[in-house]
């Protein structure tokens, strides 16, 4: 029996070491050179903390714990093996799982403690289950939209924001009442049901282009709810892990909202997808188009090429053809770089992962702020599947819905080439004046097919220079 206090000390020590390892893990993520060490540190911390917990004398029955751990691992393995293009929906799904865990534990803790729940405890417990259940359904909806199980187009109705705000206030009201009357346990299910509904309603009006912001925000909510759970269970390790996750989600949300030119409060209170519907009048101004042969000719005599990838590249699975193009041009001594807008793709950093998967060296992938100064010295800016992030109207046209949004200054390059299926407007339905500039050549076709044709011209068509 004397060994029990020692066991408790060992458990606390494993938690302390795990906390340090978690912080180091994120610190090592700062650079690709040390990032994998960060994963090792995180894994080690997790292993220590779980092993330590299993020593706890509070555990009287290991059967269900063991079954659940094995089952979780079995589900986790395929979730770790998804294709890189499916990473955004996988991430949303994992936010849902994390929130599910937090909500269930919070619910169980309430019924274990009720009716004698101290006020502060009830406050954090309410926060835990409100944020948890909201993140759960919200993330499931986001994952469904990204996987295209659900309609991707935003669904809006009148008074949407009032309904959402009303639901949020209702949930908070019930929470406050429970803080003072924790014996009214029949009200607790309301504390779950209302945010569950709110999570669905919050994501309904979200379109694909807003997904990077939404995923980041759900990330922050998931972290905060886990931290609240740490308060309830008095687990410092969980408080720290949740705070780190919340901080990460918060920073990414702020980055994304800046890159979309939305105020952070606008994003925080779910003011997404409020874009004005596209105006009807399709322009019929003339554009210049070019064949793969012409495009290859221009590229082969360029000195400096900047490729601007967007979600369209991912949809067309064109990244490997783009790599072939990169290899071919680089072999000719042409300087090829990639310009990555923060909201390109469906989650923060999405494009970088896809291009890294296609074996493009990461030092060629440049962030918007790093590359924008280079465009005036660039011979060819080649846009593949990106639209709104290159729209110069964001700089010049105060009437444009995206006015003020930071963009990639591709229009400053000597020649602009745009691989695009047709002249249809982009996701947000906004006309892009870039396509009508004299220096712009439209390359009509599928991103993968067209990139492949350019590569064929470059290899087969002999040396133009």
């Amino acid at each position: 029996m004397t060994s029990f206090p020692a066991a408790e000390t060992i458990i606390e020590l494993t938690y302390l070491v795990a906390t340090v390892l978690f912080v180091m893990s994120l610190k090592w993520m700062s650079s690709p050179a040390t990032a994998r060490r960060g994963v090792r540190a995180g894994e080690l911390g997790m292993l220590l903390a779980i092993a330590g917990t299993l020593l706890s004398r509070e555990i009287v029955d290991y059967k269900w714990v063991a079954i659940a751990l094995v089952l979780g691992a079995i589900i986790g393995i395929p979730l770790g093996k998804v294709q890189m293009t499916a990473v955004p929906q996988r991430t949303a799904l994992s936010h849902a799982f994390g929130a599910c865990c937090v909500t269930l534990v919070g619910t169980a803790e309430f019924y274990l403690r009720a009716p004698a729940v101290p006020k502060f405890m009830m406050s954090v417990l309410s926060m835990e289950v409100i944020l948890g259940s909201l993140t759960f359904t919200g993330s499931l909806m986001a994952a469904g939209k990204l996987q295209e199980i659900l309609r991707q187009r935003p669904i809006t109705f009148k008074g949407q924001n009032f309904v959402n705000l009303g639901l949020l206030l209702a949930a908070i009201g019930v929470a406050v009442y429970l803080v003072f009357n924790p014996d009214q346990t029949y009200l607790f299910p309301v504390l779950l049901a209302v945010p569950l509904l709110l999570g669905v309603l919050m994501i309904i009006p979200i379109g694909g282009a807003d997904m990077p912001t939404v995923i980041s925000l759900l990330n922050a909510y998931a972290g905060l709810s886990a931290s609240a759970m740490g308060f309830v269970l008095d687990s410092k390790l969980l408080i720290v892990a949740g705070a780190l996750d919340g901080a990460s989600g918060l920073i990414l949300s702020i980055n994304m909202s800046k890159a979309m030119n939305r105020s952070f409060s606008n994003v925080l209170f779910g003011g997404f997808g409020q874009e004005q519907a596209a105006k009807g009048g399709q322009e019929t101004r003339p554009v210049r188009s070019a064949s793969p042969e012409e495009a290859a000719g221009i590229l082969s005599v360029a000195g400096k090429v900047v490729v601007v990838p967007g979600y369209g590249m991912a949809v067309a699975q064109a990244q490997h053809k783009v790599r072939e193009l990169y290899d071919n041009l680089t072999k000719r001594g042409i300087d090829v770089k990639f310009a990555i807008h923060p909201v390109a793709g469906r989650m923060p950093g999405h494009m970088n992962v896809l291009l890294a998967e296609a074996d493009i060296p990461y030092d060629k992938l440049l962030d918007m702020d790093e590359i924008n100064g280079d465009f005036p010295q660039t011979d060819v800016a080649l846009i593949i599947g990106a639209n709104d992030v290159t729209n110069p109207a964001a700089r010049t046209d105060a009437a444009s819905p995206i006015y003020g949004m930071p963009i990639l200054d591709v229009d400053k390059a000597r020649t602009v080439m745009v691989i695009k299926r047709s002249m249809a407007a982009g996701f947000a339905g906004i006309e892009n004046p870039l396509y009508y500039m004299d220096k712009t050549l439209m390359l009509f076709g599928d991103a993968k097919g067209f990139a492949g044709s350019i590569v064929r011209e470059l290899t087969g068509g002999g040396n133009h220079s």
Partner: protein
Amino acid sequence: MKMDLITSAYVFLLAAFVGLEVIRRVSPLLHTPLMSLTNALDAIAVVGAILLAGAHKTTLSTVLGTIAIVAATSNVVGGFFITDRMLKMFKSSRNPKP
């Protein structure tokens, strides 16, 4: 009990500041793996679920705890796995890793 919560509040605030400072330095290049990594770390909530399911206080708490362990463990395993897979792909042109 009250002092514990105040201590927890200190821990939370300090961890949040550390988090903001550390994560601000993460290159945008790695924002996707960052998110999957923090997600995996966040799944440390599994320790709370293990204690809940293992303590076997009521049927409800055991059932909810067990489901919670499954959900969190899948995040631990899947999260670390995919983060490492992604990071393995990032290679530099200057010193290509093996």
